[in-house]
């Protein structure tokens, strides 16, 4: 398991390649990358605040839960904080599993929990001013998909 919270950019391609290359016996690797979207009205930059200490612990807990739930080969989370420009990469996750469904589900699980349960806050600096990004109801609702079910 590889969890990194950092201000500096990361090399998505090299990270993805290295992650895939160090797997053994895994048939499927999924990556997700979150990118600063240039918004209508013009995004000057995005600022990401986080809670040092808690952030790493929260990400580790989320990754451990995914690993237990899908018997993953491995999981990687890299998340940046600080100031990011349009089209810069904010974060990535990668998952490896024997089969594709597990790799996809685990990556979606990581993203859903990371969105609403890891202590990051985004502030968009637009041409007409700055605003904190509001949490979306659909992001909170997405967690329901992973709630324990009967017999599960």
């Amino acid at each position, binding site marked *: 398991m590889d969890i990194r919270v950092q201000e500096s950019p990361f090399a998505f391609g090299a990270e993805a390649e290295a992650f895939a290359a160090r797997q053994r016996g895994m048939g499927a690797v999924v990556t997700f990358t979150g990118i600063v979207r240039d918004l209508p009205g013009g995004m000057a930059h995005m600022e990401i605040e986080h*809670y040092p200490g*808690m952030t790493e612990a929260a990400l580790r807990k989320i990754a451990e839960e995914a690993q237990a739930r899908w018997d993953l080969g491995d999981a990687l989370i890299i998340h940046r904080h600080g100031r990011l420009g349009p089209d810069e990469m904010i*974060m990535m996750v990668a998952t490896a599993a024997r089969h594709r469904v597990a790799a996809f589900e685990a990556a979606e699980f990581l993203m859903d929990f990371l969105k*609403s349960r890891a202590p990051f*806050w985004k502030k968009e600096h637009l041409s007409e001013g700055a605003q904190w990004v509001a*949490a979306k109801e659909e992001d909170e609702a997405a967690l329901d998909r992973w709630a324990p079910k009967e017999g599960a």
Partner: protein
Amino acid sequence: MMDVLYFAWVRERVGLPKERVETGAATVRELVAELKAREPRYEAAFADEGALRVAVDQELTDFDASLTGAREVAFFPPMTGG
């Protein structure tokens, strides 16, 4: 005595990221009531409990949580990572 941390717009409204607070509050909700009684900026930050999240010793919890033995309490809006 405990550290109280504020993030995102809660930090901006309170006007600082962290402070050391002398308190006998037994729960998060009691601590919030004490802070709100202090100054209008705390009133502004804590006006809508439903818009806030809280962590005690870096674990997400709720406003009913006990503060017994707690060293660090953090207040912030819903998270928006990813």
